[in-house]
Protein backbone atom coordinates (compact mmCIF):
# COMPACT_ATOMS: atom_id res chain seq x y z
CA UNK A 1 0.00 0.00 0.00
CA UNK A 2 2.80 2.38 0.86
CA UNK A 3 4.38 1.51 -2.47
CA UNK A 4 1.17 2.59 -4.22
CA UNK A 5 1.12 5.89 -2.41
CA UNK A 6 4.72 6.51 -3.32
CA UNK A 7 4.11 5.57 -6.95
CA UNK A 8 1.42 8.08 -7.68
CA UNK A 9 3.45 10.88 -6.10
CA UNK A 10 6.42 9.70 -8.14
CA UNK A 11 4.45 9.70 -11.38
CA UNK A 12 2.91 13.08 -10.60
CA UNK A 13 6.42 14.38 -10.12
CA UNK A 14 7.34 13.02 -13.51
CA UNK A 15 4.46 14.93 -15.15
CA UNK A 16 5.45 18.14 -13.38
CA UNK A 17 9.06 17.73 -14.41
CA UNK A 18 7.99 17.22 -18.02
CA UNK A 19 5.91 20.38 -17.88
CA UNK A 20 8.82 22.31 -16.41
CA UNK A 21 10.95 21.17 -19.37
CA UNK A 22 8.45 22.68 -21.82
CA UNK A 23 8.43 26.39 -21.05
CA UNK A 24 6.54 27.04 -24.30
CA UNK A 25 3.61 24.99 -23.01
CA UNK A 26 3.61 26.92 -19.75
CA UNK A 27 3.74 30.18 -21.69
CA UNK A 28 0.83 29.27 -23.93
CA UNK A 29 -1.39 28.01 -21.10
CA UNK A 30 -0.84 31.26 -19.22
CA UNK A 31 -1.24 33.53 -22.23
CA UNK A 32 -4.55 32.02 -23.30
CA UNK A 33 -6.60 33.11 -20.28
CA UNK A 34 -5.13 36.61 -20.52
CA UNK A 35 -6.39 36.80 -24.09
CA UNK A 36 -9.84 35.57 -22.99
CA UNK A 37 -9.97 38.12 -20.21
CA UNK A 38 -8.95 41.06 -22.37
CA UNK A 39 -10.91 39.98 -25.45
CA UNK A 40 -14.17 39.06 -23.80
CA UNK A 41 -13.76 41.91 -21.37
CA UNK A 42 -13.68 44.40 -24.24
CA UNK A 43 -16.20 42.56 -26.42
CA UNK A 44 -18.93 42.23 -23.82
CA UNK A 45 -18.13 45.37 -21.83
CA UNK A 46 -21.57 46.87 -22.39
CA UNK A 47 -23.32 43.62 -21.56
CA UNK A 48 -23.30 44.41 -17.88
CA UNK A 49 -25.49 47.43 -18.60
CA UNK A 50 -28.32 45.34 -20.09
CA UNK A 51 -31.30 45.46 -17.77
CA UNK A 52 -31.56 42.18 -15.90
CA UNK A 53 -27.80 41.46 -15.98
CA UNK A 54 -27.46 42.94 -12.56
CA UNK A 55 -25.13 45.79 -13.47
CA UNK A 56 -21.66 46.12 -12.03
CA UNK A 57 -18.24 45.60 -13.53
CA UNK A 58 -18.14 43.04 -16.36
CA UNK A 59 -14.54 41.99 -15.60
CA UNK A 60 -15.71 41.07 -12.12
CA UNK A 61 -18.41 38.94 -13.71
CA UNK A 62 -16.08 37.50 -16.35
CA UNK A 63 -13.06 36.47 -14.26
CA UNK A 64 -14.63 33.43 -12.54
CA UNK A 65 -15.97 32.38 -15.97
CA UNK A 66 -12.50 32.52 -17.51
CA UNK A 67 -11.05 30.61 -14.54
CA UNK A 68 -13.54 27.79 -15.10
CA UNK A 69 -13.23 27.86 -18.88
CA UNK A 70 -9.45 27.64 -18.71
CA UNK A 71 -9.61 24.79 -16.20
CA UNK A 72 -11.96 22.98 -18.57
CA UNK A 73 -9.84 23.60 -21.67
CA UNK A 74 -6.55 22.51 -20.11
CA UNK A 75 -7.96 19.39 -18.53
CA UNK A 76 -9.69 18.30 -21.73
CA UNK A 77 -6.17 17.53 -23.08
CA UNK A 78 -5.31 15.35 -20.10
CA UNK A 79 -5.77 12.12 -22.07
CA UNK A 80 -3.04 13.25 -24.45
CA UNK A 81 -0.37 12.15 -21.95
CA UNK A 82 -1.82 8.64 -21.92
CA UNK A 83 -1.82 8.50 -25.71
CA UNK A 84 1.75 9.77 -25.77
CA UNK A 85 2.78 7.18 -23.17
CA UNK A 86 1.05 4.38 -25.04
CA UNK A 87 2.71 5.37 -28.31
CA UNK A 88 6.18 5.59 -26.86
CA UNK A 89 6.04 2.40 -24.80
CA UNK A 90 6.21 4.33 -21.52
CA UNK A 91 2.79 3.02 -20.48
CA UNK A 92 3.88 -0.60 -20.95
CA UNK A 93 7.03 0.12 -18.99
CA UNK A 94 4.95 1.36 -16.05
CA UNK A 95 2.41 -1.45 -16.34
CA UNK A 96 5.13 -4.10 -16.29
CA UNK A 97 6.53 -2.55 -13.10
CA UNK A 98 4.94 -3.09 -9.69
CA UNK A 99 2.95 0.15 -9.91
CA UNK A 100 -0.76 -0.11 -9.25
CA UNK A 101 -3.15 0.82 -12.04
CA UNK A 102 -4.81 3.15 -9.57
CA UNK A 103 -1.54 5.05 -9.18
CA UNK A 104 -1.43 5.75 -12.92
CA UNK A 105 -4.92 7.25 -12.80
CA UNK A 106 -4.33 9.12 -9.54
CA UNK A 107 -1.08 10.60 -10.83
CA UNK A 108 -2.78 12.05 -13.88
CA UNK A 109 -5.53 13.61 -11.74
CA UNK A 110 -3.11 14.89 -9.12
CA UNK A 111 -1.06 16.57 -11.82
CA UNK A 112 -4.20 18.13 -13.26
CA UNK A 113 -5.23 19.36 -9.80
CA UNK A 114 -1.86 21.00 -9.19
CA UNK A 115 -1.65 22.72 -12.58
CA UNK A 116 -5.28 23.90 -12.39
CA UNK A 117 -4.70 25.29 -8.92
CA UNK A 118 -1.72 27.33 -10.05
CA UNK A 119 -3.36 28.39 -13.31
CA UNK A 120 -6.58 29.51 -11.57
CA UNK A 121 -4.63 31.49 -8.98
CA UNK A 122 -2.70 33.28 -11.73
CA UNK A 123 -5.87 34.12 -13.70
CA UNK A 124 -7.49 35.48 -10.55
CA UNK A 125 -4.43 37.65 -9.98
CA UNK A 126 -4.56 38.92 -13.57
CA UNK A 127 -8.31 39.53 -13.26
CA UNK A 128 -7.69 41.51 -10.12
CA UNK A 129 -4.99 43.49 -11.96
CA UNK A 130 -7.43 44.36 -14.78
CA UNK A 131 -10.05 45.61 -12.37
CA UNK A 132 -12.06 42.62 -11.19
CA UNK A 133 -13.39 42.82 -7.65
CA UNK A 134 -13.60 39.91 -5.23
CA UNK A 135 -15.89 41.02 -2.41
CA UNK A 136 -16.05 37.44 -1.16
CA UNK A 137 -12.45 37.76 -0.02
CA UNK A 138 -9.85 35.03 0.46
CA UNK A 139 -12.44 32.40 1.36
CA UNK A 140 -14.35 33.10 -1.82
CA UNK A 141 -11.20 32.98 -3.93
CA UNK A 142 -10.22 29.65 -2.34
CA UNK A 143 -13.69 28.30 -3.15
CA UNK A 144 -13.44 29.48 -6.76
CA UNK A 145 -10.08 27.73 -7.10
CA UNK A 146 -11.62 24.68 -5.44
CA UNK A 147 -14.48 24.39 -7.92
CA UNK A 148 -12.11 25.04 -10.83
CA UNK A 149 -10.11 22.01 -9.65
CA UNK A 150 -13.29 19.94 -9.37
CA UNK A 151 -14.46 20.72 -12.90
CA UNK A 152 -10.90 20.15 -14.22
CA UNK A 153 -10.74 16.72 -12.59
CA UNK A 154 -14.16 15.74 -13.89
CA UNK A 155 -13.13 16.77 -17.40
CA UNK A 156 -9.72 15.09 -17.08
CA UNK A 157 -11.42 11.82 -16.11
CA UNK A 158 -13.54 12.01 -19.24
CA UNK A 159 -10.56 12.90 -21.41
CA UNK A 160 -8.49 10.04 -19.94
CA UNK A 161 -11.31 7.56 -20.46
CA UNK A 162 -11.66 8.63 -24.08
CA UNK A 163 -7.92 8.39 -24.66
CA UNK A 164 -7.85 4.86 -23.25
CA UNK A 165 -10.84 3.68 -25.25
CA UNK A 166 -9.72 5.27 -28.49
CA UNK A 167 -6.00 6.07 -28.32
CA UNK A 168 -5.81 8.50 -31.20
CA UNK A 169 -4.79 12.14 -31.00
CA UNK A 170 -7.22 13.13 -33.75
CA UNK A 171 -10.18 11.61 -31.92
CA UNK A 172 -9.27 13.29 -28.66
CA UNK A 173 -8.72 16.68 -30.26
CA UNK A 174 -11.99 16.40 -32.15
CA UNK A 175 -13.96 15.30 -29.13
CA UNK A 176 -12.48 17.95 -26.83
CA UNK A 177 -13.14 20.86 -29.12
CA UNK A 178 -16.65 19.60 -29.88
CA UNK A 179 -17.44 19.25 -26.21
CA UNK A 180 -15.62 22.08 -24.52
CA UNK A 181 -16.89 25.13 -26.40
CA UNK A 182 -20.62 24.26 -26.27
CA UNK A 183 -20.27 23.34 -22.61
CA UNK A 184 -18.75 26.75 -21.94
CA UNK A 185 -21.29 28.72 -23.95
CA UNK A 186 -24.24 26.78 -22.56
CA UNK A 187 -23.34 28.15 -19.15
CA UNK A 188 -23.29 31.44 -17.32
CA UNK A 189 -19.53 31.72 -17.78
CA UNK A 190 -19.74 34.86 -19.93
CA UNK A 191 -23.32 36.03 -19.78
CA UNK A 192 -25.84 36.02 -17.00
CA UNK A 193 -28.40 33.27 -17.56
CA UNK A 194 -31.06 35.92 -16.87
CA UNK A 195 -30.51 37.48 -20.29
CA UNK A 196 -29.94 34.36 -22.45
CA UNK A 197 -32.72 32.42 -24.26
CA UNK A 198 -34.78 30.23 -21.99
CA UNK A 199 -33.69 26.94 -23.55
CA UNK A 200 -30.02 27.77 -22.97
CA UNK A 201 -30.73 28.64 -19.36
CA UNK A 202 -32.62 25.33 -19.13
CA UNK A 203 -29.72 23.26 -20.44
CA UNK A 204 -27.27 25.21 -18.30
CA UNK A 205 -28.99 23.96 -15.16
CA UNK A 206 -27.69 20.46 -15.96
CA UNK A 207 -24.28 21.56 -17.23
CA UNK A 208 -21.38 20.90 -14.83
CA UNK A 209 -19.49 23.85 -16.34
CA UNK A 210 -22.36 26.09 -15.30
CA UNK A 211 -22.35 24.56 -11.81
CA UNK A 212 -18.66 25.42 -11.50
CA UNK A 213 -19.01 28.93 -12.97
CA UNK A 214 -22.03 29.73 -10.80
CA UNK A 215 -20.48 28.33 -7.64
CA UNK A 216 -17.27 30.24 -8.29
CA UNK A 217 -19.05 33.49 -9.03
CA UNK A 218 -21.28 33.22 -5.97
CA UNK A 219 -18.27 32.42 -3.78
CA UNK A 220 -16.23 35.47 -4.82
CA UNK A 221 -19.26 37.79 -4.79
CA UNK A 222 -20.51 39.82 -1.85
CA UNK A 223 -22.17 37.87 1.02
CA UNK A 224 -21.88 34.46 -0.67
CA UNK A 225 -24.69 31.93 -0.33
CA UNK A 226 -22.44 29.14 0.90
CA UNK A 227 -25.24 26.59 0.85
CA UNK A 228 -25.65 27.04 -2.91
CA UNK A 229 -21.87 26.90 -3.44
CA UNK A 230 -21.71 23.68 -1.42
CA UNK A 231 -24.50 22.01 -3.34
CA UNK A 232 -22.91 22.91 -6.69
CA UNK A 233 -19.58 21.61 -5.38
CA UNK A 234 -21.36 18.41 -4.32
CA UNK A 235 -22.78 17.91 -7.83
CA UNK A 236 -19.33 18.53 -9.29
CA UNK A 237 -17.84 15.97 -6.91
CA UNK A 238 -20.39 13.43 -8.13
CA UNK A 239 -19.46 14.23 -11.77
CA UNK A 240 -15.79 13.82 -10.83
CA UNK A 241 -16.35 10.42 -9.22
CA UNK A 242 -18.39 9.32 -12.23
CA UNK A 243 -15.70 10.20 -14.79
CA UNK A 244 -12.96 8.79 -12.55
CA UNK A 245 -14.81 5.48 -12.43
CA UNK A 246 -15.31 5.68 -16.18
CA UNK A 247 -11.59 6.11 -16.76
CA UNK A 248 -10.80 3.25 -14.36
CA UNK A 249 -13.11 0.99 -16.34
CA UNK A 250 -11.60 2.21 -19.59
CA UNK A 251 -8.18 1.41 -18.16
CA UNK A 252 -9.21 -2.15 -17.40
CA UNK A 253 -10.79 -2.54 -20.81
CA UNK A 254 -7.60 -1.34 -22.49
CA UNK A 255 -5.68 -4.15 -20.80
CA UNK A 256 -6.64 -7.24 -22.70
Amino acid sequence: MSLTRQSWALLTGRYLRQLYRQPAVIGITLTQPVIWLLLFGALFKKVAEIPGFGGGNYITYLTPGVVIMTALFSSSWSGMSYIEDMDTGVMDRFLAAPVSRGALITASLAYQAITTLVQSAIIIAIGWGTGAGFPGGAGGIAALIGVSVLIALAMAGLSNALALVSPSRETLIGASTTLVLPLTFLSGAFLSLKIVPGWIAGIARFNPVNWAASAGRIAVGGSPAWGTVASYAGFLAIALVATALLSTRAFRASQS
Partner: protein
Amino acid sequence: MNEPAGAVQACELRKTYGSKAGEVRALDGLSFSVATGSVFALLGPNGAGKTTTVRILTTLSRPDGGRATVAGIDVLKRPGRVRSAIGVVSQHSGAVGLLTGYENLTLQGRMYGMPRRELRSRAAELLDQFGLADAAGRQARTYSGGMRRRLDVATALVHRPAVLFLDEPTTGLDPEGRAELWEMLTGLSSGAGTTILVTTHYLDEADKFAARVAIVDRGRIVAEGTSDELKAQLRGDSVVLELAGTTEAGRAEKALAQVPQVRQTSSDGAVVRARVADGPRALPAVLAGLETAGVPVLSVTVARPSLDDVYLHHAGRSFRQAEGSAVA
Protein backbone atom coordinates in the same frame (compact mmCIF):
# COMPACT_ATOMS: atom_id res chain seq x y z
CA MET B 1 16.79 -19.32 -7.27
CA ASN B 2 17.30 -22.73 -8.86
CA GLU B 3 13.90 -23.70 -10.15
CA PRO B 4 14.22 -27.04 -11.83
CA ALA B 5 11.21 -26.07 -13.90
CA GLY B 6 13.18 -23.26 -15.56
CA ALA B 7 13.09 -19.51 -15.21
CA VAL B 8 10.31 -19.17 -17.74
CA GLN B 9 7.72 -21.76 -18.51
CA ALA B 10 4.89 -21.33 -20.97
CA CYS B 11 2.34 -24.07 -21.23
CA GLU B 12 -0.29 -24.33 -23.96
CA LEU B 13 -0.79 -20.57 -24.24
CA ARG B 14 -3.75 -19.53 -26.35
CA LYS B 15 -4.86 -16.09 -27.37
CA THR B 16 -7.29 -14.84 -29.96
CA TYR B 17 -7.71 -11.20 -30.87
CA GLY B 18 -10.65 -9.46 -32.44
CA SER B 19 -14.31 -10.15 -32.91
CA LYS B 20 -15.91 -13.32 -34.26
CA ALA B 21 -15.96 -11.86 -37.74
CA GLY B 22 -12.27 -11.02 -37.95
CA GLU B 23 -10.61 -13.35 -35.48
CA VAL B 24 -6.85 -13.53 -35.41
CA ARG B 25 -5.47 -16.50 -33.55
CA ALA B 26 -2.24 -15.06 -32.16
CA LEU B 27 -1.26 -18.03 -30.00
CA ASP B 28 -2.36 -21.55 -30.66
CA GLY B 29 -1.12 -23.74 -27.82
CA LEU B 30 2.36 -22.33 -27.48
CA SER B 31 4.69 -24.04 -24.97
CA PHE B 32 8.37 -23.71 -24.13
CA SER B 33 10.71 -23.50 -21.21
CA VAL B 34 13.83 -21.44 -20.56
CA ALA B 35 16.68 -22.66 -18.33
CA THR B 36 17.76 -20.30 -15.55
CA GLY B 37 20.65 -18.04 -16.56
CA SER B 38 20.49 -18.76 -20.26
CA VAL B 39 19.81 -16.67 -23.35
CA PHE B 40 16.74 -17.94 -25.14
CA ALA B 41 15.51 -16.61 -28.47
CA LEU B 42 11.99 -16.76 -29.79
CA LEU B 43 12.55 -16.59 -33.52
CA GLY B 44 9.81 -16.01 -36.00
CA PRO B 45 8.49 -13.70 -38.67
CA ASN B 46 6.39 -10.67 -37.82
CA GLY B 47 2.93 -11.76 -36.75
CA ALA B 48 4.03 -15.21 -35.57
CA GLY B 49 2.97 -14.50 -31.97
CA LYS B 50 6.26 -13.47 -30.37
CA THR B 51 5.08 -10.14 -29.03
CA THR B 52 1.85 -11.63 -27.71
CA THR B 53 3.89 -14.26 -25.88
CA VAL B 54 6.12 -11.66 -24.28
CA ARG B 55 3.14 -9.51 -23.31
CA ILE B 56 1.53 -12.46 -21.56
CA LEU B 57 4.71 -13.47 -19.75
CA THR B 58 5.28 -9.88 -18.60
CA THR B 59 1.69 -9.56 -17.27
CA LEU B 60 0.70 -6.96 -19.90
CA SER B 61 -1.87 -9.24 -21.44
CA ARG B 62 -3.87 -12.27 -20.34
CA PRO B 63 -4.07 -15.46 -22.39
CA ASP B 64 -7.43 -17.05 -23.25
CA GLY B 65 -6.02 -20.38 -22.14
CA GLY B 66 -2.88 -22.04 -20.81
CA ARG B 67 -0.52 -21.38 -17.93
CA ALA B 68 2.82 -19.68 -17.45
CA THR B 69 5.37 -19.18 -14.71
CA VAL B 70 8.23 -16.70 -14.56
CA ALA B 71 10.95 -17.10 -11.93
CA GLY B 72 8.75 -19.85 -10.48
CA ILE B 73 5.79 -17.47 -10.01
CA ASP B 74 2.43 -18.04 -11.64
CA VAL B 75 1.91 -15.21 -14.13
CA LEU B 76 -1.87 -15.34 -14.04
CA LYS B 77 -2.31 -15.77 -10.30
CA ARG B 78 0.41 -13.47 -9.01
CA PRO B 79 1.11 -10.84 -11.65
CA GLY B 80 2.26 -8.37 -9.00
CA ARG B 81 5.03 -10.64 -7.79
CA VAL B 82 6.07 -11.44 -11.34
CA ARG B 83 6.46 -7.72 -12.05
CA SER B 84 8.97 -7.36 -9.23
CA ALA B 85 11.04 -10.22 -10.62
CA ILE B 86 11.27 -9.17 -14.24
CA GLY B 87 12.71 -6.46 -16.42
CA VAL B 88 11.06 -5.60 -19.74
CA VAL B 89 12.36 -3.93 -22.86
CA SER B 90 9.44 -3.51 -25.24
CA GLN B 91 9.53 -2.83 -28.95
CA HIS B 92 8.91 0.84 -28.38
CA SER B 93 11.55 2.65 -26.43
CA GLY B 94 9.80 3.17 -23.11
CA ALA B 95 12.15 5.97 -22.12
CA VAL B 96 10.51 9.26 -21.19
CA GLY B 97 11.95 11.66 -23.75
CA LEU B 98 11.79 14.77 -21.59
CA LEU B 99 13.63 13.13 -18.70
CA THR B 100 17.38 12.68 -18.70
CA GLY B 101 18.96 9.25 -18.89
CA TYR B 102 19.73 9.41 -15.20
CA GLU B 103 16.17 10.47 -14.33
CA ASN B 104 14.70 7.64 -16.38
CA LEU B 105 16.78 5.17 -14.40
CA THR B 106 15.95 6.62 -11.01
CA LEU B 107 12.24 6.90 -11.83
CA GLN B 108 12.26 3.21 -12.69
CA GLY B 109 14.18 2.23 -9.57
CA ARG B 110 11.82 4.17 -7.34
CA MET B 111 8.83 2.44 -8.89
CA TYR B 112 10.38 -0.74 -7.53
CA GLY B 113 10.78 0.88 -4.14
CA MET B 114 14.57 1.04 -4.23
CA PRO B 115 16.06 3.30 -1.57
CA ARG B 116 17.50 6.56 -2.96
CA ARG B 117 21.10 6.02 -1.98
CA GLU B 118 21.32 2.53 -3.43
CA LEU B 119 19.55 3.78 -6.52
CA ARG B 120 22.05 6.57 -7.04
CA SER B 121 25.00 4.20 -7.15
CA ARG B 122 23.09 1.62 -9.19
CA ALA B 123 22.14 4.23 -11.80
CA ALA B 124 25.74 5.45 -12.05
CA GLU B 125 26.96 1.88 -12.40
CA LEU B 126 24.50 1.10 -15.21
CA LEU B 127 25.15 4.35 -17.07
CA ASP B 128 28.81 3.48 -16.98
CA GLN B 129 28.27 -0.12 -18.01
CA PHE B 130 26.12 0.87 -20.99
CA GLY B 131 28.41 3.66 -22.16
CA LEU B 132 25.95 6.41 -21.27
CA ALA B 133 27.86 8.12 -18.47
CA ASP B 134 28.58 11.20 -20.60
CA ALA B 135 24.97 11.47 -21.75
CA ALA B 136 23.45 10.86 -18.30
CA GLY B 137 22.38 14.49 -17.87
CA ARG B 138 20.90 14.87 -21.33
CA GLN B 139 17.21 14.40 -22.09
CA ALA B 140 16.54 10.99 -23.59
CA ARG B 141 14.87 12.52 -26.66
CA THR B 142 18.28 13.79 -27.79
CA TYR B 143 19.75 10.26 -27.77
CA SER B 144 20.55 8.33 -30.93
CA GLY B 145 18.64 5.11 -31.63
CA GLY B 146 21.43 2.96 -30.26
CA MET B 147 21.85 5.05 -27.11
CA ARG B 148 18.13 4.93 -26.49
CA ARG B 149 18.08 1.18 -26.78
CA ARG B 150 20.98 0.91 -24.33
CA LEU B 151 19.12 3.19 -21.95
CA ASP B 152 16.06 0.96 -22.30
CA VAL B 153 18.06 -2.11 -21.35
CA ALA B 154 19.78 -0.30 -18.49
CA THR B 155 16.37 0.89 -17.24
CA ALA B 156 15.00 -2.63 -17.32
CA LEU B 157 17.94 -3.80 -15.23
CA VAL B 158 17.85 -1.20 -12.45
CA HIS B 159 16.22 -3.47 -9.89
CA ARG B 160 18.37 -6.47 -10.82
CA PRO B 161 15.60 -8.63 -12.25
CA ALA B 162 15.98 -12.41 -12.33
CA VAL B 163 14.51 -12.57 -15.82
CA LEU B 164 14.90 -10.00 -18.58
CA PHE B 165 12.46 -9.90 -21.51
CA LEU B 166 13.34 -8.08 -24.71
CA ASP B 167 10.91 -7.79 -27.58
CA GLU B 168 12.72 -7.19 -30.88
CA PRO B 169 15.43 -5.14 -29.17
CA THR B 170 17.63 -4.85 -32.25
CA THR B 171 14.98 -3.67 -34.70
CA GLY B 172 16.01 -0.33 -36.14
CA LEU B 173 19.63 -0.61 -35.04
CA ASP B 174 22.52 -0.67 -37.46
CA PRO B 175 24.63 -3.86 -37.62
CA GLU B 176 27.20 -2.37 -35.27
CA GLY B 177 24.51 -1.44 -32.74
CA ARG B 178 22.99 -4.89 -32.98
CA ALA B 179 26.28 -6.65 -32.34
CA GLU B 180 27.00 -4.30 -29.41
CA LEU B 181 23.63 -4.98 -27.81
CA TRP B 182 23.98 -8.73 -28.17
CA GLU B 183 27.42 -8.60 -26.61
CA MET B 184 25.90 -6.86 -23.60
CA LEU B 185 23.11 -9.41 -23.34
CA THR B 186 25.35 -12.45 -23.50
CA GLY B 187 27.63 -10.76 -20.98
CA LEU B 188 24.68 -10.28 -18.66
CA SER B 189 23.69 -13.90 -18.69
CA SER B 190 27.20 -15.17 -18.14
CA GLY B 191 28.10 -12.46 -15.63
CA ALA B 192 25.04 -11.75 -13.50
CA GLY B 193 23.28 -15.02 -14.27
CA THR B 194 20.27 -13.17 -15.60
CA THR B 195 17.87 -15.28 -17.62
CA ILE B 196 17.21 -13.57 -20.93
CA LEU B 197 14.29 -14.16 -23.24
CA VAL B 198 14.57 -12.24 -26.45
CA THR B 199 12.41 -12.19 -29.55
CA THR B 200 13.87 -11.49 -32.94
CA HIS B 201 13.14 -11.90 -36.60
CA TYR B 202 16.82 -11.86 -37.47
CA LEU B 203 17.89 -15.43 -38.13
CA ASP B 204 21.60 -14.63 -37.86
CA GLU B 205 21.22 -13.13 -34.37
CA ALA B 206 19.40 -16.12 -32.97
CA ASP B 207 21.93 -18.38 -34.63
CA LYS B 208 24.97 -16.60 -33.27
CA PHE B 209 24.01 -15.47 -29.79
CA ALA B 210 21.20 -17.49 -28.26
CA ALA B 211 21.96 -20.64 -26.29
CA ARG B 212 18.63 -22.05 -27.39
CA VAL B 213 16.24 -21.05 -30.11
CA ALA B 214 12.54 -21.72 -30.41
CA ILE B 215 11.02 -21.14 -33.82
CA VAL B 216 7.54 -19.65 -33.68
CA ASP B 217 5.14 -19.95 -36.57
CA ARG B 218 1.44 -19.10 -36.56
CA GLY B 219 1.21 -19.05 -32.78
CA ARG B 220 3.00 -22.31 -32.11
CA ILE B 221 6.56 -23.45 -31.45
CA VAL B 222 7.49 -25.56 -34.45
CA ALA B 223 11.05 -26.41 -33.41
CA GLU B 224 13.24 -25.88 -30.38
CA GLY B 225 16.87 -26.55 -29.48
CA THR B 226 20.35 -25.13 -29.87
CA SER B 227 20.78 -23.78 -33.36
CA ASP B 228 23.29 -26.58 -34.10
CA GLU B 229 20.79 -29.18 -32.96
CA LEU B 230 18.10 -27.67 -35.11
CA LYS B 231 20.32 -27.63 -38.15
CA ALA B 232 21.63 -31.16 -37.50
CA GLN B 233 18.07 -32.48 -37.47
CA LEU B 234 17.81 -31.44 -41.05
CA ARG B 235 20.34 -33.89 -42.44
CA GLY B 236 21.18 -32.69 -45.88
CA ASP B 237 22.26 -29.54 -47.68
CA SER B 238 20.87 -26.57 -49.49
CA VAL B 239 21.63 -25.78 -53.06
CA VAL B 240 21.38 -22.03 -53.41
CA LEU B 241 20.83 -20.80 -56.94
CA GLU B 242 21.05 -17.23 -58.05
CA LEU B 243 18.95 -16.52 -61.12
CA ALA B 244 19.05 -13.72 -63.65
CA GLY B 245 15.77 -12.23 -62.49
CA THR B 246 12.91 -12.52 -60.04
CA THR B 247 10.54 -13.60 -62.79
CA GLU B 248 12.54 -16.79 -63.31
CA ALA B 249 12.03 -17.98 -59.72
CA GLY B 250 8.62 -19.55 -60.26
CA ARG B 251 9.74 -21.50 -63.34
CA ALA B 252 12.89 -22.59 -61.56
CA GLU B 253 10.93 -23.93 -58.59
CA LYS B 254 8.62 -25.83 -60.92
CA ALA B 255 11.57 -27.34 -62.74
CA LEU B 256 13.32 -28.28 -59.48
CA ALA B 257 10.22 -30.06 -58.25
CA GLN B 258 10.72 -32.51 -61.15
CA VAL B 259 14.26 -33.38 -59.98
CA PRO B 260 14.02 -36.56 -57.84
CA GLN B 261 16.84 -35.54 -55.44
CA VAL B 262 15.13 -32.28 -54.44
CA ARG B 263 12.98 -32.53 -51.32
CA GLN B 264 11.77 -28.96 -50.97
CA THR B 265 12.23 -25.59 -52.62
CA SER B 266 11.77 -21.97 -51.67
CA SER B 267 12.55 -18.68 -53.30
CA ASP B 268 13.35 -15.19 -52.22
CA GLY B 269 13.58 -12.71 -55.05
CA ALA B 270 16.00 -14.04 -57.59
CA VAL B 271 17.47 -16.61 -55.16
CA VAL B 272 16.05 -20.13 -55.11
CA ARG B 273 16.98 -22.74 -52.53
CA ALA B 274 16.59 -26.46 -52.97
CA ARG B 275 16.87 -28.94 -50.09
CA VAL B 276 18.78 -32.08 -51.07
CA ALA B 277 20.24 -35.03 -49.17
CA ASP B 278 23.77 -34.60 -50.51
CA GLY B 279 24.63 -31.30 -52.10
CA PRO B 280 27.63 -32.12 -54.28
CA ARG B 281 26.02 -35.28 -55.59
CA ALA B 282 22.69 -33.72 -56.43
CA LEU B 283 24.21 -30.69 -58.09
CA PRO B 284 24.49 -32.07 -61.66
CA ALA B 285 20.86 -33.22 -61.64
CA VAL B 286 19.71 -29.86 -60.25
CA LEU B 287 21.56 -27.93 -62.93
CA ALA B 288 20.43 -30.31 -65.65
CA GLY B 289 16.82 -29.83 -64.55
CA LEU B 290 17.12 -26.07 -64.83
CA GLU B 291 18.95 -26.34 -68.16
CA THR B 292 16.10 -28.40 -69.57
CA ALA B 293 13.56 -25.87 -68.36
CA GLY B 294 15.67 -23.11 -69.91
CA VAL B 295 16.30 -21.21 -66.70
CA PRO B 296 19.70 -19.53 -66.75
CA VAL B 297 21.67 -19.68 -63.51
CA LEU B 298 24.10 -16.93 -62.50
CA SER B 299 25.71 -18.69 -59.56
CA VAL B 300 25.29 -21.77 -57.46
CA THR B 301 26.40 -22.61 -53.92
CA VAL B 302 26.05 -25.69 -51.81
CA ALA B 303 25.45 -24.79 -48.18
CA ARG B 304 25.05 -26.59 -44.89
CA PRO B 305 21.55 -26.05 -43.49
CA SER B 306 20.85 -22.62 -42.05
CA LEU B 307 18.13 -21.61 -39.61
CA ASP B 308 16.23 -20.42 -42.65
CA ASP B 309 16.20 -24.01 -43.87
CA VAL B 310 15.06 -25.15 -40.43
CA TYR B 311 12.23 -22.69 -40.61
CA LEU B 312 11.31 -23.75 -44.13
CA HIS B 313 11.34 -27.38 -43.07
CA HIS B 314 9.00 -26.86 -40.12
CA ALA B 315 6.79 -24.07 -41.34
CA GLY B 316 6.54 -25.13 -44.97
CA ARG B 317 7.50 -21.73 -46.32
CA SER B 318 10.58 -19.58 -46.27
CA PHE B 319 11.12 -17.09 -43.51
CA ARG B 320 10.97 -14.10 -45.85
CA GLN B 321 7.73 -15.31 -47.42
CA ALA B 322 6.20 -15.66 -43.97
CA GLU B 323 7.27 -12.12 -43.14
CA GLY B 324 5.61 -10.88 -46.29
CA SER B 325 2.30 -12.58 -45.57
CA ALA B 326 2.26 -11.65 -41.90
CA VAL B 327 -0.65 -9.75 -40.44
CA ALA B 328 1.38 -7.41 -38.30
